[in-house]
């Protein structure tokens, strides 16, 4: 009987020792830094567009901003790809997909209209900024160990 209790205790100890509940991936500092950098690039892109250009003289024609649009889309796609390979990460993947989708919509709208109003620049910046802050929060709340 005593032997059985010892074996059971050892079994429970092994189970309890090896059992660790994991529901979300751990915090990734490199991804958090990349989100922060992308946020700054996006803010800089829209603020520069707002402050240094006007629609008259075709200053805000789409072709003036192609390189910036490409660079930002590459960063957003990279964030999505990096999150996709992490297990148990469907919530962060969804946030990245929403952010990329939103940016592509704004890019496509600018391309179609070939101009953009001050109000729409302000709103684009605000929605992109808030999406990226949500992405940042999603990463920041993940466990560190």
């Amino acid at each position, binding site marked *: 009987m005593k032997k059985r209790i*010892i074996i059971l*205790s*050892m079994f*429970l*100890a092994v189970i*309890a*020792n090896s*059992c*660790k*509940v*994991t*529901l*979300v991936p751990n915090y990734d500092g490199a991804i958090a830094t990349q989100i922060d950098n992308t946020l700054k690039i996006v803010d800089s892109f829209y603020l520069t567009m707002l402050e240094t250009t006007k629609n008259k003289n075709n200053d805000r024609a789409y072709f003036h901003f192609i390189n910036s649009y490409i660079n930002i889309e590459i960063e957003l796609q990279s964030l999505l790809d990096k999150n996709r390979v992490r297990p148990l990460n469907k*919530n*962060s993947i*969804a*946030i990245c997909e*929403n*952010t990329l*989708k*939103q940016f592509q*919509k704004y890019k496509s709208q600018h391309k179609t209209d070939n101009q953009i*109003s*001050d*109000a*729409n620049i*302000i*709103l684009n910046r*605000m*929605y992109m900024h*808030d*999406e990226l802050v*949500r*992405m940042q*929060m*999603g990463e920041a*709340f*993940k*466990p560190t160990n």
Partner: protein
Amino acid sequence: MKFDINETLFQMLGAIKQTVGENWPEVKSAMNDFFQGRRTRLELLADFRIKNQITEVEFQSRLVDEKLLLNSELHVIAIISKAVAQKAANAAIDILNKAVKALIPF
């Protein structure tokens, strides 16, 4: 030494309650942040529409953006909830682990 299952379960429950309770300010802070952000955006959006700085089509398109952002916010809350649940579950398992280890005679 006797393994007191009731005491262990009680302590495990206590650990879960404490962990969830400790994290409530973080959850609350995120919710407040989302609420404030939404208010600022909707006020600005209404202002631009009233002053005719954006068209009705653009206004409706922004409401779609708002929906997408709300979806992202729900995913942030899901991450917070999972992280808190993970911490609470592991705290409870640690208590079980310690209770069992205390009984091992070697």
